[in-house]
């Protein structure tokens, strides 16, 4: 059967030339294009974060206050809207969803390409805002400052508005593919858990992203037509803007974390050669998280002047999110039990995900408790919390996914030793950077401060040094990944002995994924001796 696959050239060599990439309808090529675009934005956002940490290395101004404000705003906006929301669903999801359910492509290939170009247009507007002089309102664009600010708010909000539609169409595409294009024999309960988390993410994308669309649309109208519904000077209510913004942005943080969780379910099972512990529990908790994520946005606004009744409801509802998250973490840990564990780089990233995401999750409890949040809101405790969940969670999941699927995507193995070294740098650097920020937050250092009291100098220096290590770690990673594209070892079809469908085909896969209808395994994690 192997030589038949050689007759079909793999998706990278099937068609040559830039034009074949720009108008491709192949979900794998679109996935790869998304991957490089979003990783580019990750580098841009990362440089801004180094700039922010450089400023905070020592008390006393280094950059002008305005430059610093623009740096942390662009760091936030680029990382959120251009990197962490699209990358796992659009890059890895696009590439592997059709293969994992035994389909030839996503339901609407042309719509898939259109989403990529919408994403490009939106992102170029955001980068345009950056080049034109940056935005200094913070990635949350709170009114009335975002209405008064002289920086390029309209450009970036227009970019976010257009990007939103790329998210909606991708989510829509994935939901239809999952419902309608599963290979015969593949059902919702024997498909990989990565697809369950992509499904839950797609639900949130379709239901929440339109609201950020209308929020940014109204903010643009606020600046252009002065409609005044968010502008207190014209009688509007700035807290209403916060409701609009966070109704999207909290589900958006679950758009970020759920795919990361999906990858962890895949990597942990393969590298401990164990069936996942509690398939249904993990699957349903993805859906539960997706649903609860719509009920809790008010915990961002406990001290914003929101009514005590709202604070009561939102604090109470936020506590519910802890349960499905805890089940997932418990099940991943239980999967390791009596397994046969290999500590390859994907597994190292998955375990550091477990380590860091648990810290991220539990620190959420501090911020969900009303009285403690009155002290900790808008301090560095919050910054540390969401970096632990977003970077400790989603980015660790992403790196696990990239290393796990690198052989399948590009037919080349990454260098294992360098993988471990960069993972060590990132792990150590990350914890040094952000554990110290928890303490800064507890001591009351507010967010978005370009200068601080001398008492905070010690921990800030520790944090800045840590951020250097993260930078080095990522530098090493990018170097060896690019190196492996050309000179990495040739990758076998199934380097990790995975049981899911993508390991049944060649690496890199042929253009139409399968030469014949694939044999569907009884469960995606067929490991271990029964009985």
């Amino acid at each position: 059967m192997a030589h038949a696959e050689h007759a079909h050239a793999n998706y990278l060599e099937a068609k040559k030339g830039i034009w074949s990439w720009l108008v491709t309808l192949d979900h794998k090529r679109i996935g790869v294009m998304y991957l490089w675009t979003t990783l580019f934005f990750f580098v841009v956002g990362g440089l801004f974060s180094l700039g922010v940490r450089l400023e905070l290395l020592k008390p006393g101004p280094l950059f002008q206050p305005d430059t610093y404000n623009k740096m942390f705003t662009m760091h936030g906006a680029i990382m959120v809207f251009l990197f962490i929301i699209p990358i796992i669903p659009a890059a890895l999801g696009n590439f592997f969803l059709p293969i994992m359910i035994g389909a030839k492509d996503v339901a609407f290939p042309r719509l898939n390409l259109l989403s990529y170009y919408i994403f490009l247009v939106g992102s170029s507007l955001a980068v345009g805002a950056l080049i034109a002089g940056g935005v200094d309102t913070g990635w949350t664009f709170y009114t009335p400052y975002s209405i008064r600010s002289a920086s390029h708010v309209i450009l970036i909000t227009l970019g976010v508005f257009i990007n939103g539609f790329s998210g909606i169409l991708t989510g829509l595409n994935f939901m239809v593919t999952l419902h309608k294009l599963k290979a015969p024999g593949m059902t919702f309960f024997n498909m990989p858990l990565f697809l369950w988390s992509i499904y839950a993410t797609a639900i949130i994308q379709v239901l929440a992203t339109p609201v950020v669309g209308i929020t940014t649309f109204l903010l643009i109208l606020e600046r252009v037509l002065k409609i005044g519904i968010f502008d207190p000077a014209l009688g509007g209510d700035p807290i209403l803007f916060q409701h609009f913004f966070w109704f999207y942005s909290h589900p958006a943080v679950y758009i970020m974390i759920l795919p990361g969780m999906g990858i962890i379910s895949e990597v942990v099972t393969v590298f401990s050669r164990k069936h996942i512990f509690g398939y249904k529990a993990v699957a349903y908790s993805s859906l539960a998280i997706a649903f609860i994520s719509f009920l809790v946005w008010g915990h961002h606004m406990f001290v914003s002047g929101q009514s005590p009744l709202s604070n009561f409801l939102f604090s109470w509802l936020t506590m519910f999110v802890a349960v499905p998250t805890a089940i997932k973490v418990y099940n991943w840990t239980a999967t390791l039990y009596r397994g046969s564990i290999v500590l390859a780089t994907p597994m190292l990233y998955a375990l550091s995900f477990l380590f860091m995401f648990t810290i991220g999750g539990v620190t959420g409890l501090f911020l969900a408790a009303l009285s403690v949040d009155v002290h900790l809101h808008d301090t560095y405790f919050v910054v540390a919390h969401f970096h632990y969940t977003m970077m400790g969670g989603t980015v660790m999941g992403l790196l696990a996914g990239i290393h796990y699927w690198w052989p399948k995507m590009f037919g080349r193995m990454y260098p294992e030793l360098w993988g471990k070294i960069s993972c060590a740098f990132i792990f150590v650097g990350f914890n040094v950077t952000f554990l110290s920020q928890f303490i800064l937050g507890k001591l009351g250092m507010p967010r978005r401060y370009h200068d601080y009291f001398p008492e905070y100098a010690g921990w800030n220096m520790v944090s800045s040094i840590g951020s250097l290590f993260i930078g080095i770690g990522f530098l090493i990673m990018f170097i060896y990944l690019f190196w492996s594209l050309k000179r990495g070892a040739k990758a076998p079809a199934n380097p990790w002995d995975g049981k899911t469908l993508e390991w049944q085909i060649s690496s890199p896969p042929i253009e139409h994924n399968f030469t014949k209808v694939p044999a569907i395994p009884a469960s995606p994690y067929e490991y271990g001796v029964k009985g």
Partner: protein
Amino acid sequence: MFTFFELPKASTIAASIDHLYDFVYWVSFVSFVGIVVACLYFIFRYHRSRSDPNKTPYIEGHHLSEIIISIILFIVVMIIFAWGWIDYKKIITTPLKPLEINITGKQWLWETEYQNGRRLTNELVVPLGQPVKLVMTSSDVLHSFFIPNFRLKQDVIPNQYTFLSFTAIKRGDHPVFCAEYCGTAHSKMLATVKVMEPVDYQKWQQEWEFKQRGGTPLEEVGASLFASKGCIACHTATDQKLVGPGMQGIYDHDVELVDGSKIKVDENYLRESLMEPQAKIVKGFAPVMPTFKGTLTDQEVGDLISYIKSLEK
């Protein structure tokens, strides 16, 4: 200002917020250590070199343990929620008769305004141990009045009023930050809460009021009020009786009332006679004195009383 890990507990609510913080800290620490130790043990015990990859058991899950974990966790988070709500209720319930102060946040400075019209920039002076209620607004964009040593913050919104009440329990200066991003000098928008002994606070206010009145002592103001408010129509500044008793020497002496009981003429009696003159009538006088409630402000009543006190024998 503070040790490496701990902020001073400078308000009544600070201690209970720290207690909940510690409770959540230890709950998180236990669950975090549990998971990390489990992972490390599993990695060590079941490493590939020690366990055959083809002989791992086919475990599909264990619903009971998941349910137990969920229930335990749900109870713990509900405790955290309830505790947080109870303390939050304390934070937002306005204390009885607080010292009310207006705060206005404007781009990059805080203005405080006391009830006697005294205005300070980037400074808030409050008496120790007495409840204070800040009524806050902003004149341009969102700000947030954040006092880390009190563990309290409250956003400040243009065209709307929000409030923040506290009782300071530690003397000295406590820094105030702006915690809601408000533009270029957001990190320069600092103020200090100066907590003084109540006696010092009174003196600090009275000195200012004294100067604000252009340097005339209270008695003089009382004298001018005594004349301008028409007391001289029935009372004299000497001990000579007119329609009402003479004011000289009346302070701190016993008088006999119509119903025969004897009381001492102290500040409360004087204040009460101004507000409800009919309540206690001295023997030998007609109940003709009109009430001054509404025409005299508290300030003026205080001035009049200090004038009467100054009319010693």
